[in-house]
């Protein structure tokens, strides 16, 4: 569990004191707003039941982000971050040289391209909404179904996947070996005489881990600045942790339980009208190892099921963190909602779409009034969004032959 202590670099006794104070305030800030559960809010929801659920569910206190978690074999160094940054922006790491990580994760679109369903190489489509890279270091599994347990392995799929980078691993390594600046950097950082795929994955993951939003107003609020949230956002926080129950899943410093839930999000009609989406839909059923029966009959993205092959996981998707959520539209695994208002309204209605199994029992009408919906949106859009994490495309190193990516040869 993450707490406020880990968030602060301990540079001095004074700073340590501030951190401890912040931790106390975090506790205060989180648990006091739960109070609405105890009062009749006029929603008609049985308060006693609601209180018991809140206790049963429990949740990790909301908090500032702690130190960046790093794998034991991949510590963060400035040199590795810079190499990873170059690789993140380098289209030579796609099969046809047309796409980089940044193509689908552009920093000026919340590191997640603004289309409902992401794209792939020319002539292909992805089949889900692209997730943001910001704060990805704090996730415990990756992509909407959590099939990857490390950021490094996730990146391998992004570079190599047929509806992503479509890059052959050995070809990727040989291309890296043709870029003298990279050869030098890999040698300095990893001690190898030639760039290796796995090290390239380590470098990109390291860069991604540094993309952290720890400056949102809510962080200041957690640190004791009661004015950091406006009245609307503060009220929204109370609802978030109380009546609306958002915190049941969106908890902890990341505002995600890193778990998987079926919400019954409405289908995205693009899968009914777009040949490319349909192609990828069927391709993914096969590529993820679904049974032939599933391949032939499902009209749903079964999410977590593809990982566990357990019926109870059909329709479940990973809970995304909510920091900087205002920048990452559209929302949900299929990008079905283009605004936060629509998202909150969906939860408030509590009516899952047709055909989704295993819908979470928490999906029920919340009885929020319109002002309350607005308050939650204010908390999400204002309280959880600070200055965006940004970066600009670096100058890429040329190939040995002097050419740059995309340059006429």
């Amino acid at each position, binding site marked *: 569990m993450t707490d406020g202590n880990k968030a602060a670099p301990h540079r001095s006794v004074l700073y340590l004191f501030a951190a401890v104070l912040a931790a106390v305030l975090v506790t205060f800030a989180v648990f006091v707003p739960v109070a609405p559960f105890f009062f009749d809010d006029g929603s008609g929801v049985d308060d006693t039941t609601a209180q018991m659920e809140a206790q049963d569910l429990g949740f990790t206190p909301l908090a500032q982000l702690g130190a960046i978690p790093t794998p034991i074999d991949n510590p963060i160094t400035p040199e590795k971050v810079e190499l990873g940054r170059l690789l993140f922006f380098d289209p*030579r790491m796609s*099969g*046809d*040289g*047309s796409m980089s990580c940044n193509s689908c994760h552009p920093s000026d679109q919340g590191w997640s391209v603004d289309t409902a369903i992401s794209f792939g*190489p*020319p*002539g*292909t489509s992805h089949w889900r909404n692209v997730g943001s890279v910001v704060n990805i270091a704090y996730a415990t599994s990756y992509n909407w179904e959590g099939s990857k347990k490390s950021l490094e392995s996730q990146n391998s799929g992004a570079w190599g996947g*047929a*509806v992503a980078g*479509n*890059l*052959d691993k*050995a*070809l990727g*390594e*040989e*291309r890296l*070996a*043709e*870029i003298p600046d990279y050869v030098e950097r890999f040698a300095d950082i990893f001690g190898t005489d*030639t760039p290796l795929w796995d090290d390239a994955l380590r470098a990109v993951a390291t860069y991604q881990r540094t993309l952290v939003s720890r400056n949102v107003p809510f962080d200041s609020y957690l640190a004791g600045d009661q004015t950091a949230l406006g009245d609307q956002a503060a009220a929204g926080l109370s609802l978030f942790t109380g009546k609306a129950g958002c915190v049941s899943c969106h908890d902890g410093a990341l505002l995600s339980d890193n778990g998987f839930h079926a919400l019954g999000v409405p289908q995205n009609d693009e*899968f*009914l*009208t777009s*040949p*490319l989406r*349909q*192609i*990828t*839909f*069927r*391709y993914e059923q*096969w*590529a993820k190892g679904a049974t032939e029966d599933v391949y*032939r*009959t*499902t*009209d*749903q993205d079964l999410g977590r099921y593809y990982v566990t092959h357990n019926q109870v996981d059909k329709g479940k998707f990973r809970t995304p963190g909510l920091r900087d959520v205002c920048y990452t539209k559209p929302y949900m695994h299929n990008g079905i909602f283009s605004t936060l208002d629509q998202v909150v309204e969906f939860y408030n209605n509590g009516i899952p779409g047709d055909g989704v199994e295993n819908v979470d029992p928490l999906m029920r009408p919340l009885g929020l009034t319109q002002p309350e919906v607005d308050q939650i949106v204010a908390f999400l859009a204002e309280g959880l969004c600070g200055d965006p994490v940004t970066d600009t495309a670096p100058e890429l190193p040329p*190939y*040995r*032959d002097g*050419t740059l990516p995309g340059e006429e*040869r």
Partner: protein
Amino acid sequence: MSEAGCGNCHAIPGIPGAAGTIGPDLTTIGTQASTRRPNMDAATYIRESIVDPNSFIAPECPGGACPPGVMLQTFAQTLNPTELDTIVGYLAVLGTPDAIPLALSAVSAPLDISRTAETLTIPAVPTDGEQPDDAQIALGRYLFFDERLSGNNSLSCSSCHQPDRSFTDGRQLSLGFPSTAYFRNTPTLLNAARSDRLYRDGRMDGDDLPTLVRDHIAEAHFMSADGRLMVERINQVPRYVDLFVEVYGGEPSYGRVLNSIAAYVRELNSGESPYDLYLAGDKGAMSEDAIAGLELFEGAAGCSSCHSGPMLSDDSFANTGVGTDPAMLDDSERAATFRRFMRTLGMPNYRNLDTDVGLYALTFDDADWGSFRVPGLREVDSTDPYMHDGSLATLAEVVSFYNDGGGSGQTAGLPALGLNATEQEQLVAFLQALGSDLPEVEAPQLPPYGINALGAG
């Protein structure tokens, strides 16, 4: 014997063009020679007949009794002892069970052209009631031209094997998948089904065209398509689904895609060339230069020691010293593709490899270093540029290359030929007579994607 002109007067089995009717027919001379002069064996008699033709006049010539004093009496001077021995040795067994099956004889044998030029005509889009094979070929033809078979929808088979360029791309080196840059010249697909091995390095079996197609669709340096994604694209084309049902009785699959394209490629064959017509008896089918070139091809130039048989290839491998233009690896994209290729074949020290080792990368046999498949020569008039690296732009350059005894480091035993300019031109003229009329192949209009019902089978 071609060089010596024996065939101008004699009919001699196994010697191209040797159908002369002035002197005796030598078809069975090996059995007759020992009967001509008392106490003289066949070889001795034949030798005497060549160096001193008037010492005995053979009894029977095609035109009646053999005329004395007609045969040239200069062979003792013009033939060196080795050449004389060779000719005597060859003739002395003609008609006997010991007759020498020379490679040359295969060239002059009637060609086994099982398909005529018409077979290259692409069948029309099938309608109800057509034969399944035709439907399979027609389906394969669609797929051959369909860029949806490549990873990023940018390439079809026809992108590099262009019908209007005799199924080559006319480039020195194949482009390959975008940003890869392949490192060898695109060979023609014509007659691929008749090749013993496929690819310049022979890494594919000529009897297994579906696997050849698969390699092209899947390889990162060719079409770089995930097979399953490709099949789902096919599944998204209603017309294709119908055709697969018609041809295979079921839905599209990777294997069926491969078989369809292979069926189409099997149809891509040469028609009758002027050379074929010439061999079949139409002596006017080739120019005099070309005929002279043919004689050189099979004689002094020695081309037919490798380029023999109906396809003018003995399906062997040779290092003729073409080597690798070092500039090829100046291009980083190509260098990366080349090194990955060699790496996936397990080449030791591939990072420092600066030449295309060809067959060696498959066998690791030192004798195969730099060896490439001897290509068939049909349609060679229109498949420029030439050699595995496309380094020779014209047939004249190719002939000149061999006239110089190949390139440095060649291990094929190529001698300098010493052909003069006229002779080289004659060889080129012959090579140009190896092309046939290839019907125009138009790219079909491809059926579009449709919309499927999700989860409906």
